[in-house]
């Protein structure tokens, strides 16, 4: 008995440390798998146009802003950037204004048709939504919404709304009803109880889901390319010019697309898991 433990004792730590080494290198490797391609894009963006088109490529950026300057003065690019920001901003506001009340209703009330309503919300996520841009292109021409950032924002809001409803639903569910009831007994109406008690508590979460809506719109390519012609967003503009634009323009554009995403995912990282957890059910 004692022999066995003595014989086993030295072996166990070595296999464990080998496993630990394997585990840590796996984590590091997977982090590198995500980060290295982004780093390459960064190197290309911070190199002069000549370097971007030369061979072989340096593995370190030379901190030359030639590519970015070229991007900035390329005809139509800044307008496209402005359109992207505008569309994403409108999507953000609309999806929260329209989505949050429904999230509140789902978390606080039992009403007839609730299941049907939830089904409608979930259904929207099980369809390739960008395809809806095709019939909407016709509808928008009839209503004068064609080729406007507002029209595109309406389509992007359709993409973002299921998320807005489900995220706000989970957020409101996290705030006990008792808090609101206490406010009612202290003389608040339903509305003032909401604005004075619930809203301050929920504001960070609402911001997170608004940011998520922004990212959805910012990144969307297909609907943007179908619905805008003169007022292209950045994604649509880059897509349209893929065949003709030089490499340094593509990479600088790609980089401009990536940067806000990096910042925003960092800002909402706490909420990412909460909202997908509830979305499962």
């Amino acid at each position, binding site marked *: 008995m004692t022999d066995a433990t003595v014989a086993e004792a030295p072996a166990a730590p070595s296999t464990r440390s080998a496993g630990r080494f394997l585990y840590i290198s796996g984590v590091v490797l997977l982090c590198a798998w*995500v980060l290295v391609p982004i780093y390459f894009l960064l190197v290309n963006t911070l190199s002069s146009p000549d370097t971007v088109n030369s061979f072989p490529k340096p*593995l370190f950026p030379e901190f030359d802003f030639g590519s970015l300057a070229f991007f900035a003065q390329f005809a139509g690019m800044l307008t496209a950037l402005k359109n992207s920001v505008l569309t994403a901003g409108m999507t953000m506001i609309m999806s929260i204004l329209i989505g949050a009340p429904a999230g509140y209703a789902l978390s606080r009330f039992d009403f007839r048709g609730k299941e049907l309503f939830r089904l409608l*919300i979930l259904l929207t996520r099980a369809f390739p939504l960008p395809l*809806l841009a095709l019939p909407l292109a016709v509808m928008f021409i009839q209503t004068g919404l064609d080729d406007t950032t507002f029209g595109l924002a309406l389509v992007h809001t359709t993409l973002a709304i299921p998320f807005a409803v489900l995220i706000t639903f989970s957020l409101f569910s996290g705030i006990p009803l008792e808090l609101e009831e206490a406010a009612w007994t202290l003389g608040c109406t339903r509305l003032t109880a909401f604005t004075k008690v619930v809203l301050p508590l929920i504001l960070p979460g609402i911001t997170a889901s608004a940011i998520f809506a922004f990212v959805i719109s910012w*990144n*969307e390519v297909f609907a943007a390319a179908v619905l805008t012609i003169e007022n292209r967003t950045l994604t649509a503009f880059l897509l349209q010019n893929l065949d003709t634009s030089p490499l340094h323009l593509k990479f600088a554009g*790609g980089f401009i697309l990536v940067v806000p995403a990096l910042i925003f995912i960092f800002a909402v990282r706490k909420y990412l898991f909460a909202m997908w957890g509830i979305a499962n059910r």
Partner: protein
Amino acid sequence: MNARLLPYMLILPVTLFLCLFFLYPFVLVAKQAFTTGAGFTLDNFREVVSYWKFPISLKNTLLLAAAVVPIQLALSLLMATMVTRMEKGRDLVLYVWTIPLGISDLAAGLIWLAIFEQSGFLNSMMHGMGIVDKPANLLTFQNPGLVFVAIALAEIWRATAIMLVILVAGIGLIPKEYYEAAEVFGASPWKRFVRITLPMLRPSLQTALVLRVIMAFEVFAVVAALGGTLFPVLMGETYAYQFDLLNSGAAAAMALVILAISIAATLVILRALRVPKGATI
């Protein structure tokens, strides 16, 4: 306000919005696909299906999904289990791994273009190691296999994060008691994974797979950035019908084909991973 009407007032905006921009466009797209100006017809479908590019783009789309989704499933399961065991640095690692979630498919395509293009980093590194002496153009019609690999890598890189987030949220919902009990009875880590994690994770796996597979059939911008016309896919053909051929009837028919494939895949996944009735966590 009447308390019974309040929930309906709250969900009214979303319902109206989704009817107008989700359900109504579906009716429109179906109408557009089944008519050519003179009543009901299947001409649009006949035209689309008999076009020489259709079998290729269908094959490419399905092949890409079949190659990418299983790898992503395995990778995201691996990453999710790695993260749950982690004590230090969990937040940082999760942030890094979820970065691609915020990156648009177009930007992801451009990121991988920086690696695979003729003067790109892959060629540069092979040159540095002395494998090639002058840069070969990798993404051409002579290397269909390499084009496929580049697109598949970009897709795996981009869209594993969304499955990871759903699975991490799902694993977080599994009660720790099951693992403790399994450990008491001497189950190995692998056994615990197969016997507890996988079955308990079924609802999350369902959500993750449905979302991912639908995204896989919508693949568009990654392909446009990397393969251009070398690798036709269904969504790219839809875009071409709408813009290059100005045939919105055919584009609508293509949209319905993609929709049909998506619905079929969703039903298969839901059926294969169905949760037994009454079984909850």
